[in-house]
């Protein structure tokens, strides 16, 4: 059995994170959390991760969006699959009028709306991890 997958969740609501963490931990993932963009960015770069979960509407200024864009621009970080969890889908369109509702921040990120269904979350995470692994294997 290989080492447990390392997931990082970035969301400013501690209780929300606890809920998500419970689902993922029970499924055998190792989950770390950051509660603001700054420490999120630090953690993000501190070691290799298998998957990021990010709340793009974090904070009043929707700082999560900026963070997603930063991840998308970083050639190393963007290799890691990104699962975006958002409070409300249309607000993304709000923030960047004229842009598509969900601009892809990294090549193959995914979007889920809050509240996420535990079963669906696990399915999406597993699928994203599998796809990223296949990509890595191919690159080798």
């Amino acid at each position, binding site marked *: 059995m290989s080492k447990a997958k390392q997931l990082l969740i970035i969301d400013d609501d*501690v209780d929300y994170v606890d809920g998500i963490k419970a689902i993922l931990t029970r499924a055998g993932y190792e989950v770390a959390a950051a509660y603001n963009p700054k420490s999120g960015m630090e953690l993000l770069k501190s070691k290799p991760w298998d998957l990021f979960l990010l709340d793009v509407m974090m904070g009043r200024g929707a700082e999560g969006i900026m963070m997603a864009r930063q991840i998308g621009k970083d050639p190393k970080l963007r290799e890691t699959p990104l699962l975006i969890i958002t409070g409300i889908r249309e607000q993304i369109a709000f923030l960047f009028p004229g842009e598509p509702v969900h601009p892809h921040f990294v090549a193959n990120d995914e979007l889920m709306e809050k509240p996420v269904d535990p*079963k669906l979350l696990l399915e999406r995470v597993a699928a994203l991890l599998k796809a990223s692994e296949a990509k890595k294997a191919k690159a080798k």
Partner: protein
Amino acid sequence: MGNERYKILLIDDEEVVLDSCARMLRGGNHEVVSIMDGAQGVELAHQFHPDLVIVDLKMPGISGLEVLERIHAFDPTIVSIMLTGFATVGSAVDAMKRGACDFLPKPIAPDEFRMVVSRALERRRLILETQALRREKEMLREQFAAIVSHELKSPLGAIQQNLFVLAEELSDKLDESQRQRLERMKVRVTDLMKMIQTWLRLISADIGKIRDNFHPVAIKEVIAKAIESVQNEATRKNIEVLAEGADTPRRVNGDEGTLVQALVNLLNNAIKYSRSASEIQVRVTEDGDKVALAVADSGVGIAADELPHVFEDFYRAPSSAKGEQGAGLGLPLSRRIVEAHDGTISVSSEPGKGSTFTIRLPALKTS
């Protein structure tokens, strides 16, 4: 008039008039600019952005009336005074019609000049004050939207998410009744979340957005749902909610959720501002192609001078609101919802006797 500093633009083709006006304005601490040509005056107004324009009616080139018209076209809040020769007093009336606040016949008497100017500037001050107030309210509303969005939505989002997770985690440990209650909680919280989002949409910017999903809505349903949602509160206060004509077959083109919300706000107020053990009537009447929903209570009522304001944001009528919780946003929200449905909302009230709020909506043709 205090010592506010205003910008005054003088436009007259006669240099003597310009000079004497400028002289009379001296000592008033205002910034005065004068120019001798109408077209150039309009040009200058764009850059200088005056508070007051004093313009001669008769000038070579474009007339004073046209100058005013052009200046008002770009900023209707600029106040103006028209200078006229004796012979043209008749067209001063015309000038007033086109937006001049006042006129002065030539030759200009200094006392009269100063009085008319100070009157015009006072008017300008009021206009600016009203504008500032409106802006402040607008900002308050936007801020409020941001606060609601964050401070309310995030905690509720966390509760909601954890309910979903708990339901899953406990799925094989709960008995049927427990499972059902947990499911109900999920539904209730989700409804609440949706409601906040609707509110946000209404209060922040675009109520017009709900128009995208308009479809035929049965009035009967709207009333039933609205009454159901306030029933507990009514029972708690031992208030009976009676419906009359509520089984109408009429339908309107609209958004059911927000229409229910508009009516719920009226019902909640009726309950809130009524004594316990009283009655509230919901009456549906048809009036040609309009359907009217009236909510009548026999509560504290609203004073006549407060009545025109109850649909304004954050307004709470001193005569009735004291002692009751509220933000003064229920009625404005109802008004926005109703207006988005091309309807109207109105109120009549007698202090001590009660109030009646009426929503009128264009109904769909019965088929």
